[in-house]
Every structure is written in C-alpha cells, then in structure tokens.
C-alpha cells in the first residue's frame, strides 16, 4: 500500500505541469471571508452553505461542543430528519428521513472524504470511526441521494466529517470524562507545525464502560461482555508550495460492544480497523486537481449468544483511487470531472477459503451553471460499472460455484438542483436525485454458514441480488427572519426505493440454501420537515423542528420464517419533534435538547436456530432529553456535566433493550498556543 501511495503521489506530481500559484482549500480562510460554513459535500466543489444545491445541515464544532454528546451519533440525534436508534450504550444506527434499521445501510459516512462506511455489512460502526469529537471542524449532513458525487450507498444521505487542517488550524485539547455505566473516557487532539510548510494532527481516544443493565431477551444472555474503544489518527500535511499540497493519514481503532445485529438479535462485536490515505492537491492553470488513494481494513469478531453461541469473524478491505478536477471553464460555469476505481473484498465466513469481491470503475461530472446572479443550475451525473467475483474454495455440499459470481452491471446516478435566491431573505431549492445502494458483501456471498440443525444445508449470501435504486424529489425553502434573528427551513420530499434487499427470508430448499437475502420489493415515502432556529439577545439560542413522514412498503411475501425482518412503514415514526434551548452568560453555559417520537414498531428477531418467528413489537411514543451544563474556570479549562436520556431512568426507544439514563462529568482543557 505504501508503494501504491508513493506511486500515486509521484504520478500526481508528474501530471500537474504549469502550476499556477494559488492555494488549495482552506476551510478556515473561506469561512472567515464569507461569514458562513463552507462545504464541498454537495457538488464536490467548494460552496457556501447557503448556496448548496442540496438540503444540507452543517454541524459546527461549536454545536458539537454544546451538544454534550460523547460520540458522533449523540451529536446527530439533535438534527432534524436524522434518526438515531440507540440499541446499546455504545452502539447506534443512524439514518436520514426514516428507513432506519439494524446495521443501517442507506447512509454513507465519510471522514474527510474517506469512507468509514463498512461495505462488508453495509453499515457504519460508529465507535470504530477513528475520530475524536475535539478534532472535528464540522459535520456535513446531506439529505437525499448523492451517489452522483460519492458513488454507491449514498442513498438516504451522506455524512461527511471534516477534521481540522493542521496547516491552517491550531487545536490542542484534552478531555477526561467519567460517569454512570462505569464510563471512563479520555481524548487528546493536537496540531503542531514543525515548519511553515508542514502541519501534523494527532488525535487519540479511549473509552470503556458497561452496557445498559436493562433486561435482555433470554436468547441474548451473555452478550454484555464490557464495552471499550481505542482509536488513534495521525495526519501530516505538506505544502510543497503555494499551489501544491501532499497529505497522508493513518488511523487505527479497536472497539467492542454489545449491539443489535441485522437479524435483530443482540451480538457482541469486536471491530479492529486501520486505514491509510494519501492525497495530492494542485492548483493549476486548468483548475484544481486532486488525486487520492486510500485503503480501509476492518476485521470484526462477532459473538452470537443464545442458541447459536458461536463467533463469526469477517475481514473486509477496500482500496480506492480517485482523481478529480475542478475548473471554472467560463464566467458562469464550473465543471468538476472525476474518475474512481475501487476494489472491495471480503473473506467468506465462517467457512473460510473463499473471497467475494467487486471492482468498481466510475466516471462522473458536475456542471454548475449560474444562469443569473440569483439562479444556479447544478447537474451531476455518474456511471458506476461494478463487476462481482469470487475466488477460492467452496465447502463440500455448497451448491454454488465461483462462476455464479461472474456478473457485472453499470448503474447511473444523477443529481439535479436549482437554487433560486428569490430575495435577500428567501432561497428556494428544487432537487431531484437518483442513488444506488449495492447489496453488502455478506449478502452477496460472504456468509457461508453450515446449518447445524435439520434439514442442514447453508445459510448463505447469494450473488444474484440487484442493487436498490433510490429516487428523491424535493422542494425546500429557506427564509431568514431577521426580526427575530432566526432561520426557517421548510422541505417537502417524495422518494421511491426499488428492489430493497432483505437480509434474510429467502430459501432454495432444493439446493439446501436457507435464510437467503433477497430483493423483496419497493417502498415509497413522502414527508415534510420544518425547522426554525435562532438567537435571542446574544445570550439565548433556541431551535425547534418537526418531521412528518409516511412510508408505504410494497414487499413480496415469501419469507420462509414468517417475517423478512424488513419493514419500514411500521418501524418509522410518523411524527418526530425536536427542540433545544441554550444559554450563555459569563463563564456559564447550559443547553437542553428534547426529542419526541410518535408510536412506532420495532422488529424483534430470533437467533439462528432459535424457536419462533421474528415479530413486530410496539415502541410507545416517548420523549427523551439530553442536557449539558458547563463552567469555564478560565480561558483554558472547563468543567461540564452532561446527561443523556435524563427524562427517565429506563426507556423503551427501540426493540433492543431499554435505554438507560447516563450522566457524566467532563474536564476539558486547552493547551499549547491555541485557546
């Protein structure tokens, strides 16, 4: 991999002749210039938050600090339209605009453009993301499909976590927390510049504690084995000149905790991840050119308690090479061109000996046309050609051969957006998008599980699953209400998902295959989001939001065990209200966040080989509250008290064990030259 990165950097340098003298992206400088956050997660080109052709929310470092959260899902659950299912003390599934499920697959998550979404099971193991909250400049939440920019799996939305830039930001913080459930947590974030042209960012964190003590299903007994997370991230940037920048980053994490698995039974998972990334950015006479290569590896060891009582080990590696150029080709026209190759492979489990993989070659373009100073049309298209394959051995009696995996397919994605700044205070967006979600590698054949009970055979993935296609149409209206120093946003959306994949439910008894994933049909949705937030007399900040959503599933019957475990119309709450209020005076700061979810249902699964069938269970309507109170001892030291789900000692929020109240104290200190 190191050789690959060196080669890529060398090639990148060779292909950037005629360098103009200008800088690459400097978030801090652009934010200071325009007075608002800047992002490139909507189109690939840098844009002001107020002008992006997408329904986007940018969570700033200040928002993160005031959230009182101790992990990223804790920050996200305060955001309108973002659904967070807390299924254990240190595990949560996150989705955008409903369609949440165990191991939520529809939301693509990246850190500085590097995906941390785990393709082997199509989800994001948040605790294994090697980023500390203190190292985050902003979290960019893009709602709706965005495959035309990011590729497969950006169908419900994209979350791009942007960390500080050690060449332009000065951050030195340490924090220590302790609280209920035996929580002990510490993190350190530091930037330093050994020379004018080199910047280094180091972040590291440790967390340990217990899971909730709320009652478990009998089959889940033994799943609580202690939670722990360790993570480290090292990034180095070298500004070779005013117009050329190199960067390398390496991460490592090890996280283990109880969590709700795709079969809706509790498992204990131990994730070990590492990644390495290299990039070169050059500002040339033809535009901004960027080359990026990275490789992620994740190994998970899953303990399935109860009847199964087995450990499953999964190994997944994804290697990605990306090229892009951004050019202002005329006064009103900006063009972004991109090419990407990725190789994604997973060793079969629990029967080893095989590798299931796919290669993706993709080309895309984004064209931004400023029709008028107040109207911009953005069109993005992308073609992804993916080829599936399998190598290695198959176990005796397995009915499939490697040739069954020889297939390829080309999938288009698009995003079209019109942004009309109708007045000084009004912005209208008209958006349409098509995204593609690939079946995960487990479902494509990574799982090869001999069934130890009659009639025998295998629980397995299959190679003939189709991708899920998600379309979304949306209108949104932003209005600045200067009289009350507030911002209003209203969004109406309509979406359709075709060929949704259920993780189990299919069977081919004649071939001895059971518990197969399958495409089960379509689903449509329509919804409305309204949010209003503002400030009052500089001391107060407040916000409130409502999301109403209906989902209509049209799934084929056909489950051999009575339920496919996939149900969105009943498991998505129709009404979600969120509100927050915050106050700052002198050295004191206090924030409170409330969310209300109307009644919905959760899936209660059955362990492999267990008796009975999965079923839907009611999740009562409920309100949950998070709070934070902080006191700044001086300019460098703050003491905080935070509470999560403080409204009740134990609360049913999902079909997983009840969520407990958690309270913790934090000591935070800034050191070095930064304050």
């Amino acid at each position: 991999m190191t050789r690959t990165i060196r080669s890529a950097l060398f090639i990148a340098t060779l292909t950037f002749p005629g360098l103009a003298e200008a800088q690459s992206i400097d978030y801090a400088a652009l934010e200071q210039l325009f007075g608002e956050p800047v992002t490139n997660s909507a189109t690939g080109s840098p844009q002001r938050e107020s002008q992006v052709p997408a329904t986007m929310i940018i969570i700033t470092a200040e928002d993160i600090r005031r959230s009182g959260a101790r992990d990223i899902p804790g920050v996200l659950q305060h955001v309108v339209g973002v659904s967070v299912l807390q299924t254990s003390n240190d595990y949560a599934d996150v989705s955008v605009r409903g369609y949440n499920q165990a191991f939520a697959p529809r939301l693509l998550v990246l850190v500085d453009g590097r995906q941390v979404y785990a393709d082997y099971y199509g989800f994001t193991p948040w605790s294994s993301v090697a980023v500390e909250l203190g190292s985050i400049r902003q979290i960019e939440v893009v709602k709706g499909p965005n495959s035309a920019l990011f590729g497969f799996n950006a169908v419900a939305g994209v979350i791009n976590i942007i960390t500080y830039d050690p060449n332009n930001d000065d951050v030195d913080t340490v924090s220590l927390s302790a609280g209920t459930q035996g929580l002990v947590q510490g993190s350190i974030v530091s930037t330093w510049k050994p020379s004018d042209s080199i910047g280094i960012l180091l972040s590291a964190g440790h967390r340990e504690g217990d899971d909730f003590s709320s009652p478990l299903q009998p089959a889940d007994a033994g799943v609580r084995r202690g939670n722990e997370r360790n993570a480290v991230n090292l990034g180095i940037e070298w500004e070779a000149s005013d117009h050329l920048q190199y960067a390398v980053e390496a991460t490592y994490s090890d996280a283990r905790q109880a969590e709700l698995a795709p079969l809706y039974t509790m498992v204990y998972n131990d994730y070990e991840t590492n990644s390495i990334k290299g990039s070169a950015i050059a500002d040339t006479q033809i535009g901004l050119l960027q080359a990026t290569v990275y490789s992620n590896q994740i190994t998970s060891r899953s303990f399935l308690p109860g009847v199964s009582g087995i450990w499953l080990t999964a190994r997944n590696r994804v290697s990605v090479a990306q090229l892009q150029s951004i050019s202002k080709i005329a006064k009103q026209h900006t063009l972004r061109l991109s090419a990407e190759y990725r190789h994604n492979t997973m060793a079969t489990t629990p029967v080893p000996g095989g590798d299931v993989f796919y290669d993706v070659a993709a080309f895309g373009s984004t064209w931004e046309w400023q029709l008028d100073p107040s109207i911009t049309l953005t069109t993005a298209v992308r073609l992804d050609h993916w080829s599936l394959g399998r190598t290695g051995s198959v176990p005796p009696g397995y009915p499939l051969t490697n040739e069954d995996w020889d297939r390829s397919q080309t999938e288009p994605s698009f995003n079209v957006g019109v942004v009309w700044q109708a007045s000084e205070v009004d912005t209208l967006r008209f958006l349409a998008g098509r995204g593609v979600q690939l079946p995960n590698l487990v479902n494509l054949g990574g799982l090869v599980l001999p069934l130890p009970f009659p009639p025998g055979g295998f629980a397995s993935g299959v190679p003939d699953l189709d991708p899920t296609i998600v379309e979304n149409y949306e209108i949104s209206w932003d209005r600045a209400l200067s009289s009350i120093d507030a911002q209003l946003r209203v969004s109406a959306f309509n979406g359709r998902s075709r060929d949704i994949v259920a993780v189990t439910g299919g069977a081919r008894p004649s071939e001895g295959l059971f518990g197969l994933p399958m495409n089960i049909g379509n689903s449509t949705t329509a919804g409305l989001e309204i949010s209003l937030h503002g400030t009052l007399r500089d001391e107060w900040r407040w916000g409130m939001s409502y999301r109403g959503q209906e989902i209509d599933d049209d799934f084929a019957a056909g489950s051999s065990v009575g339920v496919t475990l996939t149900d969105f119309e009943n498991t998505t709450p129709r009404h979600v209200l969120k509100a927050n209020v915050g106050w700052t005076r002198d050295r004191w700061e206090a924030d409170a966040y409330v969310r209300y979810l109307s009644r919905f249902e959760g899936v209660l699964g059955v362990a492999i080989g267990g008796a009975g069938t999965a079923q839907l269970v009611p999740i009562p309507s409920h309100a949950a509250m998070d709070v934070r109170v902080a006191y700044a001892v001086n300019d460098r030291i703050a003491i905080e008290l935070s509470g999560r789900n403080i409204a009740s000692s134990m609360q049913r929020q999902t079909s997983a064990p009840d969520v407990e109240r958690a309270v913790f104290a934090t000591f935070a200190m800034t050191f070095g030259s930064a304050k």
Partner: protein
Amino acid sequence: MYVTPSVFNALAQIARLVRPKIRLWQAALACLLVFCVPARAEVTAADVQVAARALSFVSNPLKGPVRVGIVYAAGNPKSVQQAQSLRSMLGNGLRVGNLELRPVLVKSTDVAGTDVDLFFLTEFMTVEETPRRLGNRTRQSILCVTTDIAQVRRGACVMGVRSRPKVEVFVNQASATANDVSFSTVFRVMITEL
C-alpha cells in the same frame, strides 16, 4: 428598506421569463419606484474585512504591512469624503488576518507616481475621474479593490466586495488578466466573475 441587486436580478429574471412583454428597464423602473433607495454611502469596516480576507486568495498574496492607496477624485466631494472616512477607519494600520493595512490617500491623477501595494478605489467617481490604468513606478499594474461594483463591471478595478446583506465578491477576469493578477481556483468557483 432597500433592495439588493440579487432581488433586482430576481425581479428582472421573472420579468424576462414570466412576463416577456415587460422589459428590463421597465422592471428596473418599477423596482426603483417601489423599493429602491440610492446606493450605499460609505465603506463599512465589514467591507474592509471582506476585502482584506479576499486578498489572501490572490497569487503571491500580500503579507504583513500593506500600503493601501485610497484613490479619490479631488473634485468630487463624495469621493473625497469616502476616502477620508476610509483613512480614518484604517488609522495607523488595521490588522486583518496576517495583513496590516496602512492607508495612503492618492488623488486619481497621481496614481502613476505613488508607490503603494494595493489600490482601493472610492465610489462615486465618474468614468472620466477614474484612472485608466492603476500602475505606478515600481509595478506596471497593481491589484485594485473597490466597493463600487460598477467600476469592476467596466474594468476599472479588478475586484469588488460587498459585505451586506451577504458577503459577495466580484472579479473582472479580463481586468485581472490584463493586470497579471490570478486567483486560486477555489476562490474563483465561489465568487462572481464579471
């Protein structure tokens, strides 16, 4: 109450697209009669901040002490007043980022003989009063900044800035090229080129 160019443009766009019988000048007249007030009267501190921040995206960006030549038309009281106001604002040197802006008043007829790092063109100058080329003894061309967007539009100045109602930066690309000034791609895709 006043209406910004974006509103005017939106109205004009509607006029063009929805009511083709209404011409641009008619929309402008309606706008003037109903909403508009005269153009801005002074350069604000926020404008200066925006201008200084924008300078960091120029090739070979200026750093440290920067002599800002505030160009005014001696026979134009409004121009003189704005120049004096701007000089007061900058005082003995205003720090913005890694720049320290030091003002020097420059008559529009004296630009060629003035040694400064940057020109700031005051508003209200007529075409006749505006220098044709902003160069001096040491450099044939120097970057020019103004809050008078019309000057940018007609090529008298390379960059125009506005801080209200929202931050906007305008660059006359032809003028930039003629003055041998270039900007980073990131900056160019985020601003309005005229």
